[in-house]
């Protein structure tokens, strides 16, 4: 296989069919960019899950003075010292519990103020308005139900809250975004494949004189098909490059614009994008080459 000969054939083929080539490049770029975005969103969700699940705990809120009417288990008013000690001992006895931290009202108020600095209620709500709690860290965050069933309704326990639930809404949103990206990508891949098939067909037709002679003089199938396959793969390579550019621009946008505004999320960055790019190149070129190969099987019989 003479590389120079093949390269010149590819150049001729792509130029002759410029509009179709552009269409292939753009559609491949869009589908690969969406595929990459979908992969990156998944990475982002995983990274956030690892980060937050580690921090997020089960909160066992203890009864406050004012809870007596609202919660049956608080009928005795605020939690007593004895109840508090008992609850802590019971928590530590459970095998799923890794660690128990006590948070008193002052700490709760401090945290609440940190998280809601602009909330107008800050002045109104005093430390007394907030419940004290045990922050329970689980060995396996999925085991929340064990705590909930053991402690909900116990005397002195106001309520048990799995803080993961708050995050699950966010993850649900991100998963939804990923699904949408994946769905649009699937459609774009179909468009890209159809365009590749059509481009190869047009290319094979416009070069039927050459391929006819090639078959006549005994060029191997590989030699006859290679320029077309290489042509499609090369167009896909351009598309993959464009898609990579789009992802890098997206990365800049997330880090320079979005990150300063949404500080509580740690966004994945360049290393993850760079990991996805080679994958996109391989997928794009492979997809184009396979599509071209199967198209040619039909149009260039021995």
């Amino acid at each position, binding site marked *: *296989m*003479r590389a120079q*000969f093949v390269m010149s054939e590819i150049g001729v083929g792509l130029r002759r069919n410029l509009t179709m080539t552009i269409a292939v490049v753009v559609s491949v770029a869009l589908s690969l960019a969406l595929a990459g975005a979908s992969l990156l969103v998944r990475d982002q969700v995983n990274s956030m899950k690892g980060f937050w699940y580690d921090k997020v705990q089960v909160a066992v809120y203890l009864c406050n003075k004012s809870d007596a009417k609202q919660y049956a288990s608080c009928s005795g008013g605020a939690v007593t010292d004895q109840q508090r000690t008992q609850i802590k001992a019971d928590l530590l006895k459970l095998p799923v519990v890794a660690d128990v931290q006590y948070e008193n009202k002052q700490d709760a108020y401090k945290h609440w103020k940190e998280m809601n600095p602009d909330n107008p209620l800050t002045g109104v709500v005093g430390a007394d308005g907030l419940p004290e709690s045990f922050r329970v860290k689980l060995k396996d965050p999925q085991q929340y139900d064990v705590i909930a069933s053991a402690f909900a309704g116990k005397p002195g326990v106001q309520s048990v809250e799995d803080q993961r639930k708050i995050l699950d809404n966010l993850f649900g949103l991100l998963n939804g975004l990923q699904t949408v990206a994946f769905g649009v990508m699937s459609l774009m891949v179909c468009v890209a494949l159809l365009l590749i098939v059509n481009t190869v067909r047009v290319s094979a037709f416009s070069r039927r*004189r*050459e391929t*006819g*002679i*090639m*078959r*006549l*003089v*005994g*060029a*191997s*199938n590989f*030699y*006859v098909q290679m320029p077309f396959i290489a042509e499609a793969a090369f167009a896909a390579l351009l598309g993959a490059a464009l898609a990579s550019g789009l992802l890098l621009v997206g990365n800049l946008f997330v880090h320079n614009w979005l990150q300063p505004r949404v500080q509580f999320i740690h966004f994945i960055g360049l290393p993850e994008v760079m990991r996805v790019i080679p994958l996109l190149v391989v997928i794009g070129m492979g997809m184009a080459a396979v599509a071209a190969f199967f198209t040619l099987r039909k149009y260039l019989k*021995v």
Partner: protein
Amino acid sequence: MIRFDNVSKTYPKQNRPALMDVSLEIEKGEFVFLVGSSGSGKSTFLRLLLREERPSQGAVHVLGKDLGRLSNWKVPHMRRQLGTVFQDFRLLPNKTVAQNVAFALEVIGKPKAAINKVVPEVLDLVGLAGKEDRMPGELSGGEQQRVAIARAFVNRPMLLIADEPTGNLDPQNSVGIMKLLDRINRTGTTVLMATHDQAIVDQMRKRVIELDKGHLVRDQSRGVYGYQH
């Protein structure tokens, strides 16, 4: 070189077979005319030799190989040992004379050095020395057919198949092409030529095979074109 054993060919959706029970043998170094009116089966005969079709019945042997049993991926290699020339030349209009000939070698992966060596030699042989850089469009029909013959012969095939090579040429150019084919035949290459050109067949006095409605009706050494059709 070529052997047909009771070969029949029926195309799908056609009642009448294109070839019917044809048996013949062509030896190495022969010069053979294949004659017959349109629809007599000449094209099918040639397509079977090139393994563009497989026989419905019987066996076609070319260069010692049973083409009916030759697997697809071996076909290109078999065709490298054949040269083929057509009535319509089939040159690439955007390549020069030398590039057209070189193309046939490039696509079978011959090294550049070998190509640069043999292309001028074969162009000299067919009488096109000095016209290497012309485009096909600038050449006469006879010269274009010489390019096509150079391309078919550059690989020194054992068998040259010519499908009405003089069909588009005036008598003078036709004679030139026949002299060239005769010269190639004298190098030991078997030449099989399908033709309608009565004058040429009568003048050359070579073996004549005549097909009529798919049947082999005449196989005559030193024959003439035959009856008026």
